[in-house]
């Protein structure tokens, strides 16, 4: 399903709303990760407002697509996107990381059962998504439902990731789509300094996955990649999404130091101003 201009604008606006809420919630929390959530907002917006077959008001709908967030530390983008698509009130986002909140610092199903899994420790999400895809294949549900797994590039350094990649390729799980947030940063620095991942596409290809590389901020490319994955029947698909960490706030972009800290109230004010003006541009562009 190709995007109409209206749909594309709507997704961009939603991504902007998602980013604004991410800044709000991180400031209120006083801790958490900034760069990854901002960088993945366009992809999450495209998934929740276009690609996913889901019912936000009926989170346990049995036929829903499954989305596994493997890199749990970017949960502000998951929570923000879920709130903006109607899973729970947007106001609840400000409880992030607070005592008694459903929005735990890293996702925990016991507190928020509508999550497909809990996550935080890196490298185990893809295994769970592989398990879901295998279960659907056993039950002949693999043509009815798709399993999505969101991963970071840093967690490509975990050995378990490659155990899961190997099994996904072996079992030709065409109902499985992995998304790697290729933002090139991790806590200690740039990925290629800490532990070089390249040639990343070749690695996945060598494990018998179909590889699509995209600009993770181009809504049309994102939507097209998820559509194309549906036409690959013999292999699972990985979408390597090149993103800018901190995307949307110039001062945060491309700087690994924003991986694991929240903005101060002053920085947040600046970020919100930038994002509001970006929102205006999206609207203005659409009205042209």
């Amino acid at each position, binding site marked *: 399903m190709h995007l109409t201009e209206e749909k594309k604008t709507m997704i961009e606006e939603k991504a902007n709303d998602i980013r604004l809420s991410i800044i709000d919630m991180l400031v209120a929390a006083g801790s958490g990760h900034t760069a990854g959530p901002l960088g993945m907002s366009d992809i999450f917006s495209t998934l929740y407002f276009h690609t996913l077959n889901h019912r936000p008001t009926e989170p346990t709908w049995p036929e829903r697509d*499954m989305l596994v967030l493997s890199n749990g530390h970017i949960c502000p983008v998951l929570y923000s996107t879920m709130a903006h698509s109607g899973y729970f009130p947007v106001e609840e986002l400000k409880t992030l990381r607070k005592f008694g909140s459903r929005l735990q610092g890293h996702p925990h199903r016991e507190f928020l059962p509508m999550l497909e899994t809990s996550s*935080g420790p890196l490298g185990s999400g893809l*295994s769970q998504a592989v*398990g*879901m*895809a295998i279960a659907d294949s056993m039950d002949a549900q693999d043509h009815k439902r798709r399993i999505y797994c969101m991963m970071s590039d840093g967690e490509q350094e975990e050995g*378990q990731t490659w155990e899961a990649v*190997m099994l996904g390729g072996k079992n030709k799980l065409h109902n499985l789509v992995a998304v790697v947030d290729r933002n090139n940063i991790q806590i200690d620095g740039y990925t290629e300094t800490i532990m070089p991942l390249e040639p990343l596409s070749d690695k996945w290809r060598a494990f018998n996955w179909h590889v699509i590389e995209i600009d993770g901020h181009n809504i049309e490319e994102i939507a097209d990649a998820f559509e194309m994955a549906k036409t690959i029947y013999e292999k699972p698909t990985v979408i390597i999404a090149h993103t800018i960490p901190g995307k949307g706030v110039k001062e945060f972009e491309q700087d690994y130091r924003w991986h694991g800290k929240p903005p101060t109230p002053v920085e947040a004010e600046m970020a919100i101003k930038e994002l509001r003006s970006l929102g205006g541009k999206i609207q203005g562009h659409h009205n042209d």
Partner: protein
Amino acid sequence: MINPLLKLNEKLFDADVEQVPIRKGFGEGLVQAAEENPQVVGLCADLTESTQMDKFKEKFPNRFVEMGVAEQNMASVASGMAAMGKIPFITSYSMFSPGRNWEQIRTTIAYNDRPVKIVGSHAGVSVGPDGGTHQAIEDIAITRVMPNMVVISPCDAVEAKKATVAISKTSTPVYLRLAREKTPVMTTPDTPFEIGKAQIMWSPSVNKTPQVGIIATGALLHKALLAAKTLEKEGTLVEVMNLSTIKPLDTEAVITLAKRAGKIVTVEEHQIHGGMGSAVAECLASNFPVPIRFIGVNDRFGQSGTPAEIIEFYGLGEKDIVKAVKELSK
């Protein structure tokens, strides 16, 4: 005398008592569980025959997933399958699962409260010739510490079969601990089994209260029963409990035994630190403190040898139990 209500194997004290590996009972139980419930699936990390999952694989090839040597992946794949309504049994040697993949079990299975059944074969030092790398003697400690996790250590193949069928019907994560070696069959198909229920296997033949209570788990229960018989001949009266479910602990039964006997000896093929004896001590320290002696591996790793040599070296045999009871009952 053995407890007549439990319908135990009448030949359990005979020299030619039937001996069957505990893991064999699991293999048979899994086939039965799978026949009863189509959601039961099996995953194995390249040890299908050795863990006795081969019979399940033959009968239900489409419900079996060969993982290759990848125990961490196996735990989390099982979690994903459980999220879709499956009841996954994952098998390897205890040293690798729940050993190698502890964090995956903790976060993707226990933290998520998914009904994955972790079946660890070759637990304990009686694995023998393979040596210490393959002798899991820390597994009870690392599983019972996890919230939501149930821990079961059957005493023989018959009980293992019943436990396997029983855990296929529960919605919690479970660790099922199995031994490699042939083990005397103490129970029969008619012996009752319930998750979380301890059983008194032996009581004084005369109508007197016991001087010491022995609590055993796993195959060493047989040594405890042999010790009980010897002790009674020599004038020391004991009661012997089979504590196959280590978590949740049957606190009522443990406290009752402590109150009756006043002294406890625990027996397990595991490190003393953190094992079944520790669970008993935690319970009694806060409810009914009594003197306790712990039969187990005392802060050492295992090594190669015949099972008999190793049991003797680490002080886990009949004479060690007799000695501990006598010292305690002085």
